[in-house]
């Protein structure tokens, strides 16, 4: 085990039992992901705006990876806006 036994056991219990309370489905998570990330990056309370999102990201590692990636990409883009032909 790479971490302390207790921390490792807690991680395992968490993976097996998942988050407490209501959570979004994977489909609902994907639907809300862009809004959630922009709220986070704006410093807003994204969790309060989209209840159940935080719990789902805690319980679904695949959706959490998507969340981290989108956040990192948008953050990396900073305030630069993509070109349009407007």
């Amino acid at each position: 085990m790479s971490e302390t036994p207790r921390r490792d056991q807690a991680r395992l219990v968490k993976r097996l039992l998942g988050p407490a309370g209501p959570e979004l489905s994977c489909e609902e998570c994907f639907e809300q992901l862009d809004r959630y990330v922009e709220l986070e990056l704006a410093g807003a309370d994204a969790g309060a705006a989209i209840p159940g999102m935080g719990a789902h990201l805690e319980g679904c590692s695949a959706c959490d990876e998507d969340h981290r990636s989108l956040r990192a990409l948008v953050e990396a883009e900073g305030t630069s806006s993509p070109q349009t032909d407007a």
Partner: protein
Amino acid sequence: MSERSEARVPGPDSESRAWLLSLRAPGPRREEASRRLRDLLLRAARFEINRRRGSHPHLRGGDLDDLAHQAANDALLAILGKLDGYRGESRFTTWAYKFALLEAAVKVRRRAWQGREVPLEPEHWSVIAGREDSPAREAESHELLDSIGAAIETELTAHQREVLVAVALNDVPIDVLAERLNTTRGALYKTIHDARKKLRSHLADAGLGFEAVLEPTRVTES
């Protein structure tokens, strides 16, 4: 699993509206906007693949760039088919990026598991049961993990057990398992959610508290 917030949101910003107008325009204007959008999606797909490159050192650069192009193409198709689903709650590009990131991530996970057997049985049960070698093991965690292991065997259906063991115990990516079982990530996560609910209920009925094991460390998934 829960109701979404009905908080007021503004409509699309001017750049997002421009994207929508261009992508809905007839003829060359739409083609040109689609080309520019595909360029953005390819950039997003490459961003995602580069983030995962370190976790999959056996995947070659050429293969990965092929995956990026496939992801960009698939994302573009998905986006053009779902333009009416964009509600302007974020910038259009943020909305579009998530399709490319998802396509790229799923393709990388599936490529990494190509040809590998997916362990569905609790053959790695020793992960839970074989922890007696840890000198720091605490009686509380010991009892809880043993009880979870027993409940997985007795309380879950065969399908719930297979899916939970594969994803939560054997670290099989949920998208890979979904492909092998010919289903979706969402359907499998629902199975996991229901299995976890059963386990929590069983532990509560047995008077076994698990919050004490979780709370002090506040573990987050990496």
